[in-house]
């Protein structure tokens, strides 16, 4: 079965969507990613959608859902590289993906994830 690979880099997970996303694939990705976070104890997830040029409302919601699920599992998520056409489509569909963190490209996304993770680990001792 077709799967989207999930790469592990330290305490981060890297998901690169290189194929046309369809509903079944999105569901499989959701399952795989959540179980991977649980298994590896990853603190951050980076989803690269720069190769994705077609979205519908379902895929849009899937992206928001995956981000929310990761957050519940204590992993920060950043979605990077959204194409202009995809962004316009999502906005026109009324999906503003509130709560999803975004970045322009993988490099910036990584930087952002690292700084957020640093801030989170910095905050943690204070709350205790």
């Amino acid at each position: 079965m077709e799967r989207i690979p999930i790469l592990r880099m330290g305490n981060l997970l890297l998901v690169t969507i290189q194929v046309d996303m369809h509903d079944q694939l999105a569901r499989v990705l959701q399952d795989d990613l959540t179980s991977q976070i649980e298994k590896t104890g990853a603190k951050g997830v980076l989803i690269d959608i720069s190769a994705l040029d077609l979205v519908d409302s379902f895929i849009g919601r899937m992206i928001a859902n995956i981000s929310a699920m990761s957050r519940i599992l204590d992993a920060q998520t950043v979605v990077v590289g959204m194409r202009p056409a995809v962004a316009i489509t999502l906005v026109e569909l009324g999906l503003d993906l509130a709560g999803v963190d975004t970045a322009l490209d993988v490099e910036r996304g990584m930087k952002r994830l690292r700084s957020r993770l640093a801030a989170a680990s910095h905050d943690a001792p204070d709350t205790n």
Partner: protein
Amino acid sequence: MADSRTKTADIIKSDMADLLSDWKSELRAAVSDSRISGAELETQAAELLGLLSTAAAHGLDISTADWQPVREYLDVVSRSRAIKGFSSQETATFIFSLKKPLFKRVRRLLASEPAALADETWAVTEFVDALGMYTVKAFQKSREEVIARQQEEMLELSTPVIKLWDGIIALPMIGTLDSARTQVVMESLLQRIVDIGAEIAIIDITGVPTVDTLVAQHLLKTVTAIRLMGADCIISGIRPQIAQTIVHLGIDLQGVITKATLADALALALQRTGQAITKAKVA
């Protein structure tokens, strides 16, 4: 009238070479312009007359299928005139200058029968007028096409996206925002964000005369799309009246960074990207 119809057709057909040379001299007198060469004008006249003589054999009603080639040729001529910048009057003159040579021949042929002459003159007038009218209509259509195209080009031109600083781009919006424009603006802005890798986009609405709920909605959509792509957006150039309007309309700009001037927006953008401008120290 059936009789007179054939007469006009006969005149065009039998006397074509002579008629053409008369028409050419009329054209030379009426249309002397550097935009079109005499040779081109004469070629057009010759070709049109050829088509006319074929079509006239089937009657002088130019709306019939037999006149299709003539109409098509007039379309082509009118379009080329419109593109070259001729006025409608100058374009119509091309056809109307055929009147005099035709009348001359009708008069010569029917000099002895005044009643027939009057009838025939009327038929020729109606015929040439119909041709002229069609030409002007085709000309107008071409002009409208030109205008529509220019409007489209203006739409593109009025949305320049400027790179202000490293990683900061600005879009000064001028004029009223409607759905079509917002779409173009949004697309070009988002594309530039990708091209440059800009982290912050500033939309300056100093040049937008009024903001209503629709415009505000368009702005919010653009802001959301920019955020989805992973960049930040600042809206600047909000004039006092517009600020009042926005609040009175109950538009929610929470979550959108707004600044009064472009300078303020740039200052914030620089701060966010970790850059600073300092005054040069005078030695």
